[in-house]
């Protein structure tokens, strides 16, 4: 009975430790700008009740969802070719490695000059954050398909297309999905970053506005809400992955 719920109990304990530390740090106080856990919680509740949070997320989710859909579609497609062809790998991978390491905050003014302060720039930021990890993971997974499985497909008369669709992609699937999860987390960072750096809309607006009027509990509530949403989102992705991957289930620390 206890063993069955062990994972959940430990996760609960982990959350309790963090929240207690937060509450203590807020009461000390570490800084006058650092609210306690309960103050933040009530601010969170207030934002939820008056609908501010929902309106904000309707705004924030736009670039996030568009950016992640674009990144997933093109990222997996490009990653597939990166993994299949050495020359394509050399041609394309450096671009994504540069994208991954570039200081994004410094690039944002350039994006704004090129694409303005609207949705396009924000989608770009999300893509720059999310796409590299998806491309590089997909490429690596495709490249590392067990040679014996490809040989098996050829020996049993599979065409190149069949080998890709029925062997290489399914074999790479778990790692592609892991890349997708990392891409989604990076995309969340990109969405918030773009709202803080380009134009304050959505959740970025709550953060900027609450800070400017020294309403720190609301600011922390907004930040916490992003984390909660990201974890929920990743959880949904993992559920989907487990549904598709009934063959090899593995427990995880994400739910």
């Amino acid at each position, binding site marked *: 009975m206890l063993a069955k719920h062990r994972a959940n109990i430990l996760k609960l304990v982990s959350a309790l430790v963090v929240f207690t530390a937060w509450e203590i740090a807020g009461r000390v106080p570490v800084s006058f700008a650092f609210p306690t856990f309960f103050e933040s919680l009530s601010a969170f509740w207030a934002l939820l009740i008056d609908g501010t949070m929902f309106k904000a997320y309707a705004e924030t989710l736009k670039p996030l969802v568009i950016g992640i859909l674009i990144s997933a579609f093109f990222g997996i497609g490009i990653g597939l070719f990166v993994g299949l062809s050495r020359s394509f790998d050399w041609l394309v991978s450096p671009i994504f490695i540069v994208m991954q390491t570039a200081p994004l905050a410094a690039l944002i003014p350039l994006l704004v000059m090129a694409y303005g302060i609207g949705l396009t720039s924000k989608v770009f930021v999300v893509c720059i954050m999310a796409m590299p990890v998806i491309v590089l993971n997909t490429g690596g997974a495709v490249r590392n398909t067990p040679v*014996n499985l490809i040989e*098996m497909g050829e*020996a*049993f008369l599979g065409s190149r297309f069949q080998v890709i669709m029925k062997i290489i992609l*399914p074999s790479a699937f778990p790692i592609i999905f892991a890349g997708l999860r990392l891409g989604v987390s990076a995309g969340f960072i990109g969405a918030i970053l773009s709202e803080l750096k380009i134009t304050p809309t959505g959740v970025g607006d709550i953060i900027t506005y609450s800070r400017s009027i020294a309403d720190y509990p609301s600011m922390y509530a907004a930040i916490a809400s992003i984390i909660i949403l990201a974890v929920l989102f990743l959880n949904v992705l993992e559920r989907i992955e487990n549904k598709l991957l009934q063959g090899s289930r593995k427990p995880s620390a994400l739910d």
Partner: protein
Amino acid sequence: MTKSTDNAVTVRNVYKNYGSTEALRDLSLDFPRGQLTSLLGPSGCGKTTLLKIIAGLLPATSGEILVNGEVVKAPGPDRAFVFQDFALMPWASVIRNVAFGLELRGVAKSEREGIAQKYINEVGLTGFEHSFPHELSGGMRQRVGLARALSVDAQVLLMDEPFSAVDEQTRRKFQEDLLGLVKNENKTFIFVTHSIEEAVYVSDQIAILLPRPSRVMEIIRPSGFRHKDVDSIRREPEYLDIVDRIWASLRSYVE
């Protein structure tokens, strides 16, 4: 009948070079129809290379492979492969793995699963149709590999050290089953092994290969005990003599 049609497979003057390394030099060998021929030799003697060239998975540098008198250069429906490390798709159930060769050929699902079921029963895996490879023991996995090769109904079965990754007891059972298969299936078997006892136990013809560069040193045809009961073969004087003789000629090549 002419002599060439008595052989299901003929290897004619095959050379294989990897860069400047000579893996096979002027190798010629006949594989009589309906019989089991072993390729036996120390490691590095090119027996797996030869088998993969016959399968069409590797190109020969020069020379010809004839299957039923026709030159072949690629995998074909006349040959099926059993892999040393099983080469099962971990994401697919037993029945999908067994039916995979037929799936690649575009056979309709109900038809191919019917055929697969027949061979799953034949190799003794009834009841495991919907298990996944990781739920099976090594011996059972190789039975899946064998059923997959049988279900495409090729005339020639190419087996690359198929029993080397299973435990000794399972291996003995496999060897007995293999004798039954050769007797009942009317297929030509090409069997790579590094075990002298195994080769003598299961073979109608043993080709002893020597390394660097690979060549056929000797062809031995055990005949006296082929019709005997599977349990008494290992006590036959001829069996023991041949094992000794092969070891005497191979020992100088083993460092």
